[in-house]
């Protein structure tokens, strides 16, 4: 009797903690849900749009975010990111690395203020290699008509 009492006292709280931890893990949103929600909570604008070929893609706009690097870490986890609008702010190594992990990007809007000319040229080449057909718009090159994003 005493032995059973002590077994309960000792291990019941740990068992409850283990169950609670399991519930936390079980209830977690999926990675893409977390990425979309975290971007919105960081004041990014995330919209699901229709492309001319009938498929759907996400358009992400970081203009209202406090910086580029932190929100960019979540962008690779959002499926089917078609267009991305960066904030006219510096892009550090972390943001560049995140950007290079994005696949399927078709349109990137960025200004030259985010990187040096050489850095930008390297980034643009690398992105076009990993995202075939990518259109990059900045404030120096001739602007591309902004009718890509259609609802």
């Amino acid at each position, binding site marked *: 009797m005493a032995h059973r009492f002590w077994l309960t006292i000792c291990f019941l709280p740990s068992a409850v903690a283990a169950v609670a931890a399991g519930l936390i893990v079980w209830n*977690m949103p999926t990675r893409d849900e977390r990425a979309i929600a975290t971007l919105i*909570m960081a004041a990014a604008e995330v919209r*699901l749009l229709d492309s001319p070929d009938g498929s759907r893609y996400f358009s992400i706009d970081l203009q209202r975010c406090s910086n580029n690097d932190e929100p960019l870490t979540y962008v690779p986890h959002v499926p089917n990111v078609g267009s991305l609008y960066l904030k006219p702010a510096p892009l550090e190594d972390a943001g560049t690395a995140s950007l290079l992990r994005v696949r399927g990007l078709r349109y990137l809007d960025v200004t030259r203020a985010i990187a040096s000319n050489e850095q930008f040229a390297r980034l643009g080449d690398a992105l076009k290699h990993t995202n075939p057909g990518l259109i990059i718009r900045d404030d120096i090159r001739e602007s591309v008509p902004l009718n890509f994003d259609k609802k």
Partner: protein
Amino acid sequence: MPSRRRVLVVRLLIALIGTLAMVATLIELKGQWALAREQRAVANLVKAGASVQLLGEENGVRYYTIGLDGCDRSKSNDELLQYVCNIGNVRALSLAPLPLREAGTKCLLDLGTVELLHLYVGDRSVPPEMYAGLKREMKRLNPNMDVQASDLDGKAVE
């Protein structure tokens, strides 16, 4: 053979550590549960085509403006409003031009933070008499709320 006193101390230590772990995990569970629910609701609304925008944060509480106008027509206002209710802190809300049923109406009445509400009135959306009753009830719950409506052609309805 360890003394009885030592055995008692070890058992009490295990119980104490386990209890502290349990309390910490339960507190964490409460916070994570609410955050997970908010994150899933926000993501599901965006995936359904809604517009969800963060307005700001006050005392650690995030406030949103949500537009359901552009959502998939396969989803009903009631289904979408379930997600909105899971987010909770919505300042401005625009419904989709679809019917609104009891479940959705209950969600609307439960949302205490909405300051601006827009919905569509007409045959294929919210009936005029239902709109009148809903507006009355929502103004009673929150006199500062601005309730607006338009028909499916975009013309304002009083």
